[in-house]
């Protein structure tokens, strides 16, 4: 037992109970279906913009060449143009690799003292693999949900649904009622990956030591979202057309509460709303932050170009010329060399 993850788990369970009893017992459909989602969307967008704008007030005058390759130097030494870019083009490639493929994480290694003496570096790609699976699956799930928020559904959403649903695991239908509707891989990958990311924090003692409630909470919340979504799609069926009428009502600012959509939908909706509200105030802001990482988005051209610190205090300097002007006669008298003979 660890208070950090127990605290987060309890928070998510409380959220579940709030949504469940709020809708089922108190009948607060309007609060949970309309007021909270609108507020959440507003807080997410305004909060996100506010945070990024706030970051932009911090100057980053110097290049931080946290290099992963040879810097641009002499013409006959080959430069690592993407890992240590000196031009904007190189930086763009490095950013694309970072944002889409988590290149920094790919370099992840494990260190171990073998026999207490020998330090060994071990190839460790699991974190990279599951992080990539998690983020891509999350993106696919989000885009797929646009079928509820667009009428007509854009062709690229339909195409993604087609790709995502190409595995037909109808042979499982004796065990699970998942033959129809067709299985979407992204939802399952998302759940498996988020569980891996959680277990990693529990079982790797070094990672466990530095994990806080704010690390566990989003993981539990996303687990809750994925589980409630999967339940709704394959097990506790809800009326999808009713749900779409409702979400389209939200999107066109004429909200109305659907009839006969089960409480599980409101649980799902509250989890998502809480995630949106939590987003701008938490480490989840790395969605915006990754684009502003100074170690990734600045070309390493410190040797070629002078970068001036914008918050340099205007220091009053006494140059040699001024010094000589001041003491010229005395210097000549004393026989010291001067650059100019007279003022």
């Amino acid at each position, binding site marked *: 037992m660890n208070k950090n993850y127990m605290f987060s788990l309890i928070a998510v369970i409380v959220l579940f109970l709030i949504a469940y009893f709020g809708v089922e017992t108190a009948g607060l459909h309007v609060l949970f279906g309309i007021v909270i989602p609108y507020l959440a*969307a507003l807080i*997410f*967008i305004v909060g*996100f*913009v506010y945070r*990024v*704008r706030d970051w*932009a*007030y*911090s*100057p*980053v005058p110097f290049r931080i060449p946290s290099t992963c390759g040879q810097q641009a130097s002499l013409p006959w030494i080959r430069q690592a143009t993407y890992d240590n870019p000196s031009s904007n083009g190189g930086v763009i490639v490095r950013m694309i690799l970072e944002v889409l493929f988590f290149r920094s994480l790919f370099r992840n290694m494990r260190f171990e003292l073998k026999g207490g003496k020998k330090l060994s570096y071990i190839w460790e790609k699991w974190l990279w693999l599951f992080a990539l699976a998690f983020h891509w699956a999350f993106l696919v799930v989000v885009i797929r949900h*646009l*079928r509820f*928020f*667009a*009428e*007509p*559904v*854009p062709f690229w*959403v*339909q195409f993604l*649904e*087609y790709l995502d649903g190409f595995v037909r695991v*109808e042979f499982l*239908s004796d065990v699970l*009622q998942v*033959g*129809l*509707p067709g299985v979407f891989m992204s939802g399952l990958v998302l759940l498996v990956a988020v569980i891996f990311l959680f277990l990693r924090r529990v079982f790797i003692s070094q990672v466990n030591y530095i994990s806080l409630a704010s690390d566990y909470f989003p993981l539990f919340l996303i687990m809750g979202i994925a589980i409630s979504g999967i339940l709704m799609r394959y097990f506790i*069926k*809800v*009326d*999808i*057309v*009713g749900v*779409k*009428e409702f*979400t*389209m009502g*939200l*999107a*066109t*600012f004429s909200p109305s509460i659907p009839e*006969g959509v089960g409480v599980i939908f409101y649980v799902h909706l509250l989890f998502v709303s809480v995630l949106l509200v939590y987003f701008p105030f938490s480490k989840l802001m790395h969605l*915006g932050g990754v*684009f502003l990482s100074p170690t990734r988005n600045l070309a390493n051209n410190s040797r070629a170009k002078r970068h001036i610190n*914008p*918050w340099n205090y205007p220091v009053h300097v006494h140059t040699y010329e001024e010094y000589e002007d001041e003491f010229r006669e005395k210097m000549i008298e004393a026989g010291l060399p001067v650059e100019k003979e007279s003022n």
Partner: protein
Amino acid sequence: MPRQMYDKGKIVAGLVIFVIIATFPFWYNIGKAAPAPELKLTDKAKAEKECVMSVTDMKAGHMQLLDEWRDEVVRSANRLYVNSKGKSFNMSLSNTCLDCHSNKADFCDKCHDYASVRPYCWDCHIDNPKATEEAKE
């Protein structure tokens, strides 16, 4: 020293892109009223009054019912389904569902377009058995 924004152009451009993406549902649907499709029941369905299961169960779970039917027929060679009210049906997609709902385009398809689902069943199953039979004659 007054606080100052650095790289203002890039930051603002990035934020504008973010806001455009995040508000997609709001601007994409501007000026479109998108009510759920009005489903038309055929005269035959109207006369029958009830579907295989209750409407709420059908709305949410007709695909699971079809899945059950398919497995029963194909694996257990059992073609008879008795619903909770004791009424029996021949478990068949084209011959039963599309008997009452012979207006597939105005019924199944309309709803599926709205919900963005494309059942692959029609790759093999005929979608309107009656029309096909008439054409043969």
